[in-house]
Structures are given as structure tokens and as C-alpha cells.
């Protein structure tokens, strides 16, 4: 009854903050801030779920021998952990940040395509329900790794593969729609005076990321479709017996997969490029070179995919070309790291939680980058490939890289989102617990990988036992540390905390700080003037 009255009232309402209440607000919302919030909560729930799968893995690997779960379930856990973290946690977190921040940063009233925005979020939970339900069908869920190499995912997989494929399609659609929205918004809705080279780097990096998404998501859609038809409809794209080639799968998958890696890190670069200058109270060093470096990384990301496949038996010349191209990526990535360090140099730094996470990001991401150079060297990669050295490498860039940057972003913008300052004491506790445990978790993986432990093993030889026990302890510590983050965010969501000013950070720059905290439901109805 009250809604009817409210709706009738709505027709004549000039008040900007008016919105439907209850669950309807969230289901039918076309507001970029609401959708951003939905994306961020969804991503956090997926992060905890994917994390709990990782803890299952670490529990089994705590000791040699099979104790807790069986190998088939173990493989489902590694698969689901990967799929959920990549497509459920990291990518939606960035899309959520883009939804919240891109319009605020470029002075736009909303995303350009608000209804599509609603749709691109709400199909995501559906996709993950399908994906998770696949674990409950006879034969179990996907157990072929998040890379689903054929023919393990075709001829030799359980029937739940059909659900896996369908869920992947929906996730891909969601990503493509999200990317289109970002591109259209940035190209058309910048405030007067906001030229491309004045855009904050977070906007730039997302702009480039969105093009990567549009370029490679269809390739993923293609390759999962081929898996589907190979398994159920008698085609032989990946079966030699029918004239296909299992290695073709890997080429297609990694042609998607490598740009995907950058999709998960470029927005991080943008976040860190916003936070470091804010807390160093000094302009970002080399803005233009940051933009060019991001664009070159994105370009090169299309030319390096086969470095995931050095052991598949490529011709020497092909291996060489992929090795050189991969090493070349170190140059623009190095430029970025040097720029961040130079931004800090002779600044006047303070170390609030966003800055702590940003600094940890620079250091730990660089460690992941350096092990990436080692992995690029083809003849040595033969020893690293598919070992825990690789697991250590990509968790350094994805967890202490991408995930840390997302946390930095959350702390940085929480006052803007919620209108209250987060609990700095709890936040610092969260940071230090995460920093220490993430290194207990992932650093020893380098050693056990070099010593020869392969990845995706439910059980291992005795010489790897000590390090695996340490890693498992680190895993549990890291996992439970994230509950502190949950507590901090819940406190903000319940408006418990000091009231935040429009610009809570002394050195912060950008249009988002010109609107009050919390940001009103509608902002920039009249575009701001950018000089």
C-alpha cells in the first residue's frame, strides 16, 4: 500500500534521492551506485566462497596422504576455486568499482546504459547458481581445472560439463555488457573539459580493460561452445581421431586467458595510481607514460598467450617469439612500478589503510612480476611449468596484487560510499594480518615448486610435507583475516563511525571528492566544469 502511494508521489517528485524501497530497489535498480554496491557485495560473497574451497584444498594438503576429501572432489575444488575467484570475485569487484566510480570520476550522472547495467549484474548470480549446482549432479561438478583443457573436459568429463559451459556463457555475456557500458559511458558522458588525457588513471585503465573484454570474451564463448559440441554433439575440434587437435583448445583458451590476466590487473594499476599520489600528497609521476604503458601492456597481451603452453611441443621459433614478447611486457610494467616509486619519492606520506594496501600491492605485485620474467624463459619454464612455482607466481599477482588493490580501493572509497569513516584500528589489523599471512601462504610455494611439487595434486611425496604444512597454516590465517574486513565493511554499512567529510583524504584529487559523503543517489545531474 505504501509503495503505491510512494509511486504515485514519485511521478511528481523532484527530490533526487527518492527510490523504491526493500528488495525491489535492488532488483529493478538502474542506478550505477546501487548496481556497484550489488557487484561489490556479490564479489565479496564469492571471494569468501571461493576462499572456503581453497581452504578445503589446503586442508587436504596439510599432510601427505588422502585424509579429508577424495581426489575427484579435490579436482572439483581446484576448478571451482579458480572459476569463482576469477569470474566471481575479481572481475565483478572491478566492475562494481567501475560502476560506482567511473561516473563519479568523469562527472557523469550515471552509466550510459542503465537497464543493461541491471541486466549484466543480475545474470551473474544466476550463472553462479548454475555453476555451483553442477557439483550436485551425478558424477560431480567440473573437475578439469579452471582452464578446462580438452579432452579432459570433453570425452573424459562428467555430464555436468553442460552446466559449466552454460554458466560460462552467461558470465561472458555479463562481462561483455559491463564492458560495453564502460566504453559508452567514458566516450560519451565525460563532463565538459574532461578530455581523455585528463581522465583519472582508474578510468583510463578500465577503458582499456573494457576493450580487452570485448575482444576476448567471445573467444571464451567460442571455446566453451566447442567443448560442448565435442562432448555432446559428436564434433572433433579437439580430438585427433576426428581430425582435431587437443592443443588447439589451449591456443584458443589462452588467447582469451592471457588478456584475461590483464583484465584482472589493469584496473588495479588505476586504483594504485589514484591512491599513492593521494597519500604521498604529490601528483602522479608520469601520467602520460602510465597511459601509454597500460595501452602497450594491453596490446602485448594478445601476443603472448602461448607462454602458457611451452611444454605442448611448439616449434622452436614459435616458442622463441612468445618468449621474447612475454619478456617485453616487463618493460611497460617496469615503467609503471618505477612511476609509483617516483610518485612516493620526496612526497609527504601518511600510511592510512588504503596506502598500506597500495604499497603492499606495489611490492608484492612486483615480486609476482619478477617471477613472471623467470617463467618467460622457455628452457627454464620446462622446470617451472605446472608446479607450485607457477601457483606462487599467479597468486602473488592476483591475491597480493589484484585483491589487495581491490581492498585498497574499498578502504579508499568506503567513506564516499557509506558516509562514515571506517574503523582505522580494525582496518590496520586487517592489513597486517593479511600481509603476514598472505606471505606465509604464497611465499613458500616458490620453494616447494622449485623442489618439484606439481600443481593440482591431491597428494604428494614426503619431501614436500613441511612446506605444505606451513602453506596450509598461512592459508587458514589469510582466510580468517578476511572476516576482519567483513566486520569493517559491516560497521560502515550500518553507519557506525565518524561522519565522513566530502573529501576525507587530504591529498586526494578528482571529481568524486566534490560531491558529499555519502554520495547522493543522483550526482552530477548538471555536469561539472573541468578546467
Amino acid at each position, binding site marked *: 500500500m505504501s509503495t503505491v502511494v510512494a509511486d504515485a508521489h514519485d511521478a511528481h517528485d523532484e527530490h533526487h534521492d527518492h527510490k523504491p524501497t526493500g528488495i525491489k530497489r535492488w532488483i529493478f535498480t538502474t542506478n550505477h551506485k546501487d548496481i556497484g554496491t550489488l557487484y561489490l557485495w556479490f564479489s565479496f560473497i564469492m571471494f569468501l566462497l571461493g576462499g572456503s574451497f581453497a581452504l578445503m584444498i589446503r586442508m587436504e594438503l596439510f599432510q*601427505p*596422504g*588422502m*585424509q579429508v576429501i577424495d581426489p575427484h572432489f579435490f579436482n572439483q575444488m581446484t576448478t571451482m576455486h579458480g572459476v569463482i575467484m576469477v569470474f566471481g570475485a575479481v572481475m565483478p569487484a572491478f566492475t562494481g568499482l567501475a560502476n560506482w566510480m567511473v561516473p563519479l570520476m568523469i562527472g557523469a550522472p550515471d552509466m550510459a546504459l542503465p537497464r543493461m547495467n541491471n541486466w549484466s549484474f543480475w545474470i551473474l548470480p544466476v550463472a553462479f547458481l548454475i555453476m555451483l549446482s553442477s557439483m550436485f*549432479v*551425478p*558424477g*560431480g561438478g567440473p573437475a578439469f581445472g579452471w582452464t578446462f*583443457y580438452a*579432452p*579432459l573436459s570433453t*570425452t*573424459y568429463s562428467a555430464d555436468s560439463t553442460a552446466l559449466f559451459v552454460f554458466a560460462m556463457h552467461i558470465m561472458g555475456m555479463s562481462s561483455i555488457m559491463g564492458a560495453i557500458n564502460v566504453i559508452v559511458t567514458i566516450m560519451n558522458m565525460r563532463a565538459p573539459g574532461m578530455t581523455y588525457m585528463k581522465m583519472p588513471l582508474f578510468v583510463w585503465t578500465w577503458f582499456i580493460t573494457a576493450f580487452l573484454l570485448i575482444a576476448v570474451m567471445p573467444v571464451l564463448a567460442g571455446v566453451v561452445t566447442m567443448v560442448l559440441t565435442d562432448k555432446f554433439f559428436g564434433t572433433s575440434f579437439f580430438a585427433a581421431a576426428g581430425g582435431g*587437435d*587437443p*592443443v588447439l583448445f589451449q591456443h584458443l583458451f589462452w588467447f582469451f586467458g592471457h588478456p584475461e590476466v590483464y583484465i584482472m590487473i589493469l584496473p588495479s594499476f588505476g586504483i594504485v595510481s589514484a591512491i599513492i599520489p593521494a597519500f*604521498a600528497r*604529490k*601528483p*602522479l*609521476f608520469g601520467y*602520460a607514460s602510465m597511459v601509454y604503458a597500460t595501452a602497450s601492456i594491453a596490446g602485448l597481451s594478445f601476443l603472448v598467450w602461448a607462454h602458457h603452453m611451452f*611444454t*605442448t*611441443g611448439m616449434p*622452436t621459433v614459435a*616458442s*622463441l617469439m612468445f618468449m*621474447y614478447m612475454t*619478456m*617485453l611486457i*616487463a*618493460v611497460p610494467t617496469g615503467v609503471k612500478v618505477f612511476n609509483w*616509486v*617516483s610518485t*612516493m*619519492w*620526496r*612526497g*609527504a606520506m601518511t600510511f592510512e589503510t588504503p596506502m598500506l594496501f597500495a604499497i603492499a600491492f606495489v611490492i608484492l605485485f*612486483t615480486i609476482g612480476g*619478477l617471477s613472471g*620474467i*623467470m617463467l618467460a*624463459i622457455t*628452457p627454464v619454464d620446462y*622446470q617451472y*611449468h*605446472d608446479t607450485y612455482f607457477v601457483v606462487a607466481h599467479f597468486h602473488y599477482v592476483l591475491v597480493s596484487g589484484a585483491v589487495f588493490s581491490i581492498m585498497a580501493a574499498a578502504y579508499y572509497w568506503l567513506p564516499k560510499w557509506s558516509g562514515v569513516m571506517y574503523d582505522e584500528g580494525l582496518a590496520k589489523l586487517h592489513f597486517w594480518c593479511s600481509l603476514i599471512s598472505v606471505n606465509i601462504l604464497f611465499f613458500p610455494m616458490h*620453494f616447494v615448486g622449485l*623442489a*618439484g611439487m*606439481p600443481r*593440482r595434486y*591431491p*597428494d*604428494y*611425496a614426503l*619431501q614436500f610435507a613441511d612446506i605444505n604444512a606451513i602453506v596450509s597454516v598461512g592459508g587458514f590465517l589469510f582466510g580468517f583475516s578476511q572476516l576482519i574486513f567483513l566486520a569493517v565493511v559491516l560497521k560502515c554499512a550500518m553507519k557506525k563511525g565518524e561522519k565522513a567529510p566530502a573529501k576525507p583524504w587530504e*591529498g586526494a584529487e578528482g571529481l568524486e571528492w566534490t560531491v558529499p559523503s555519502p554520495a547522493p543517489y543522483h550526482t552530477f545531474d548538471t555536469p561539472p566544469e573541468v578546467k
Partner: protein
Amino acid sequence: MKTRRTSLLAGLLALVATPVAWANDLQLNMTQGSTDMSQHVYGLHMLVFYICVVIGVLVFGTMFVSIFRHRKSRGVTPAKFHDNVKVEIAWTVIPFLILVAMAVPATITLFEMDDTDDSDLTVVVTGSQWRWHYSYLDHDVEFQSILATQNEQIYGRLPKTENYLSEVDRPLVIPTDTKVRFLITSEDVIHSWWVPEFAIKKDANPGYINEVWTRVNEPGIYRGVCAELCGQGHAFMPIVVIAKEPAEFQEWINAEEERLAAERAEEERLLSMNMSMDQLMETGRNIYLAQCAACHQPNGQGIPGVFPRLAGEGVSVGDRTQHIDIVVNGVSGTAMQSFQNSLSMSEIAAVITYERNAWGNDTGDAVQPADIHNFIQGNQ
């Protein structure tokens, strides 16, 4: 007082020494291996590692100096600079040159590694779920190599022994000081044949053949594993390679040829006579546990939706010829492979007999080697 201090010191020393002693036993780095090539790879690994350490120390060092000195609490005023073309060119060009310095030795090593010409011995390595099969191209010798660790150790009912999960029933034997070429392929999914001491890791792709080579310097036992996710038995298909002096190897391969010839003669003999039920059941049980139990499970229950159940239903209690057909030819489009080439006729007969009579199936059927022989003949 003094004793207390000494004991405190001793205690501290022990605290430091324990992890150090522990770290000495613990392998923390890549193996140097036992071939020239693995030494090159190790050298490259260390070179790139040290370069990365230097870069890391420089970058992080600068950062820490900055974090220490350029903090607001020290009352500094922030500088205003935000560009410096010269510096930016320098840190684009210098890393590029460092990368070139790493790429040159890497390229040379890679060309050497990929040169499989002029080998003296060729072994075909075939992966399948979840075992390796070795066949010497120039000799009449081939065999399967299966995990030798008992299930009881894996499931904690027996203590784990030294070579837990890195021991096999029949290791691959190769000569030292000889260029041995491996042709690597697979029967089902992708596997990857990895022996760290040789710096060899190559995928076994079904329907395609990859080539690698090694020249082992020292006789010894070298252990490896499957490195590409290949299903639930992925962790349970290790590799063991024994390198013997060429003369010893020659002796071994001759003996092996004779032994296999004798086995084939025995097989011929068995074709014309019947094995007793007990004999069939016992051989069958062993074969079943080694070859079939990974999928169909030791108790014949299978895994619902993935691997068919054999106890009390399906082909094991159904048509006998169809049962023989499935074991001999496999089922195309599924994980059930053909066992015609990997098991002898008596072994196939025994395992079918076992499946038809174990777990309360009790069909009473005894399948004889001759039945398998006739089936295969009839097939062709």
C-alpha cells in the same frame, strides 16, 4: 648468573640452528640435475633469479628509503615534480637491455634442447589414465609402469615409506652417455612426462607425438611425475628412470627381450589349455587392482555418473561377449580404453573372470585365454 646467560645463549642458538639444520635437509631450489642440459637450465634459472633479486633490492630499497624519509610525520613538504623525460627513457631502455642479456643464453639453450637429431636409442612414452607405457623402438621390449605405493599408505592405514608416491613397479631403464630420444604421446587425455633431473617436461598429447632427448651422465635412479592435470589419478602416476652404464644396459635389454619372448611363448601355451578358476581369480584380482580399480573402484562400485559400477549390474553380470568386447576394444568416446595391447590374453581372460565373479556377481563364468584369442580372431 653466568650459567643462566650461557644456557640462554645456547637456547637462542638452538632456536636459530634448528630451522637452519632443517633447511639444509629441505630442498628449496631447483635441482641441478644430472645432464649437461639440466645444468644449463639451472644456470639460466640462477642467472635470471639473481638479476631479479638485484632489481627487487634496488626498487624496494628506493621505496623503503622513501617510506622512511618522505613521511609527513617528519614534517617534509611534498615536492611538485611529476615528469622527467630523461629518467623515463632510461628506465625503459635499461630494462630492455637487461632482457636482451637474458634472452640470448635462453635462445641458445632452447635450440640445443630442441635438437633431437642423431639419437642412439628411442623410447616411445605413452601416457594413459593413470600409468606410463614404455616401448623401445629398436628392441622387442615394452612394458607398463604403474604406481607401486599401496593404497593402504595413501589412506593412512600403513606408515608411509621413503619413496611414497614416487615408486613404480617397473622403472624405465636407459643407458648413460647415450643420446636417448623420447617420443611422447597419450592414449586418452593430456599428460606431461616430467623428470626434473633431466630438465625434461613434455606434454603427452593424444593423437600427436612430441620429441625430447637426454644424455644422462651418471648412473642412478631418477624420479619424476605427471605434470598435466589428467583426472583423479593425476598425482598417482609417477615416473622412475634407472640409468645404467651402456654395457649393463645392453645386458638388461637382452634379458628383458628373452623374458618377454618367454612370456609370449607361455601365452601361446596357455591358449591351448584351460586355467583353473582359482588361478584366473587370483591373477584377475591383481590385474583388476592395478589396472581397473582407479576408475571402477576396488569394490567395483564405480563412481556414479562418471565410471560405471561393475558390482551386481551392467555388463559384468550380462552378456559375456559384450564384456570381452569392452575390455579388448574399449568404448570409444569414453574413458574406457582398449586393453588389447597393454594386457596379455591370459590377463584379459583373468580380469574378466574376476569381474564376473567378484563382489557377489557370482555368474560362475570362467573366461579362458582361448576365448579372448577367438574373440580377437573373429573380430579381424
